[in-house]
């Protein structure tokens, strides 16, 4: 068990593991995304109401899911850093923040593109969209705070605390479509209940989500390695 957890605690072990798994995770991620997007964009049936415009779900939904999941990931690493002083905690948090920021931006942007044909507007101050926009601001704020301190230890501690408090926004985003009457539709896929999407549309979506997950994980490995190099230089 100790050997299994060692890469998560020791920087040296982490780099070795990172280099070993990065190419496989990246390639498999790209492979799955390609399958998901090609089948979703070209072979999935046309939606009876929305026509072809619904196909943006293969980009928007995975991005929106990971914009929130990445924040949970950051919160777990921040917690582990503050409580157990796990050295790579801040590194993982910041690497994930860069990716989370990008993913949240794409989720907002693709949502806006989808909004024009379906809602007739590219932006609406609706609870789901606004809370996601706040999440985007939080990612930017975390990166700004982390980059504002010369003392790395101080920067890491402050970033970890802010990340942990920011978790409050994630259930708000998740539940916003249930708590308020929003223009944004409620969740169509859920682990607890049956999906309201037809299987022929759902399968490519699930593959896209898995593929994007692996791709982002690989991206995280790359970013964390680059950050480690930067730390070594400074």
């Amino acid at each position, binding site marked *: 068990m100790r050997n299994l957890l060692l890469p998560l605690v020791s920087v040296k072990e982490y780099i070795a593991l990172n280099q070993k798994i990065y190419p496989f995770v990246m390639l498999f991620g790209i492979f799955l995304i390609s399958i998901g997007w090609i089948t979703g964009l070209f072979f999935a049936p046309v939606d009876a109401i929305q026509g072809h415009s619904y196909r943006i779900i293969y980009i928007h939904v995975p991005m929106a899911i990971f914009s929130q999941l990445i924040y949970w990931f950051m919160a777990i690493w921040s917690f582990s850093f503050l409580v157990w002083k796990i050295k790579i905690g801040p590194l993982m948090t910041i690497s994930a923040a860069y990716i989370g920021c990008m993913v949240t931006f794409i989720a907002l942007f693709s949502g806006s593109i989808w909004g024009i044909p379906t809602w007739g507007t590219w932006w609406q101050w609706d609870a789901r969209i606004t*809370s996601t926009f*706040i*999440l985007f*601001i*939080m990612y*930017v*704020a*975390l990166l*700004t*705070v982390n980059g*504002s*301190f010369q003392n790395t230890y*101080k920067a890491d*501690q*402050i970033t970890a*605390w*802010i990340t942990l*408090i*920011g978790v*409050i*926004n994630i259930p*708000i985003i998740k539940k916003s479509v249930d708590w308020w009457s929003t223009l944004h539709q409620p969740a169509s896929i859920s682990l607890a209940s049956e999906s309201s999407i037809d299987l022929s549309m759902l399968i490519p979506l699930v593959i896209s989500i898995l593929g994007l997950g692996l791709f982002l994980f690989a991206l995280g490995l790359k970013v964390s390695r680059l950050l480690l190099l930067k730390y070594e230089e400074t």
Partner: protein
Amino acid sequence: MNEFQKLFYKTRNWLGPNLIFVMVMIAFPLSLNIYSAELETSFESILVIALLMIAFISSEGIFNEDFLDGSFEMFISEGRSLFQLVMEKFCAYYFMVSLPISLAALAFALANGVIKDNYLLTASGVFFVNTIFTSIFAFGSAISLNKGAILGIISVLPFSMPAVIVFGRFLDNLSVSNISFSFLELLAGLSIMSFLIFAWLSSKIIKLHLE
């Protein structure tokens, strides 16, 4: 000298935010037709923005002076609790800034015809939401000690959104006492939680700055 006295003698820190709040609330009807129904409908939004603005103006320098003149270091070296000191500071700000502002907000709500009754409920709601904002921005101020206020505001502004949401619901339901009272209880709970959590976190961050 306790924190209340210290704040009382620093007039700029407590009178300034109160005056700015009054100025903003006076300026807002002037920008509209004063007989317009828009006065009532836009009052809530202006109030929330004014409260947010006052909270970060008032808490901007809450720790600066003590940090720069070495009071915090002396305090720690004497073996006293920084958490307690921060809590005292928060209480002083609640008393000298949040309380007068909640009374002023009540007066403006009456003047603009937004409320007809529920005076105590309105003033309490404004007081609680202002204490939440003050706690949050004071934490931001602790983060950005010697880095300028902007950094602190950017990093903590998103945390004020749940309070804004609850406060909005509270104001929307002001005419229905039962529902409004439930939201007031929620605001009170959030206020107590944010007081304790952000006071503790601020003391941790200040200690970190001193290390």
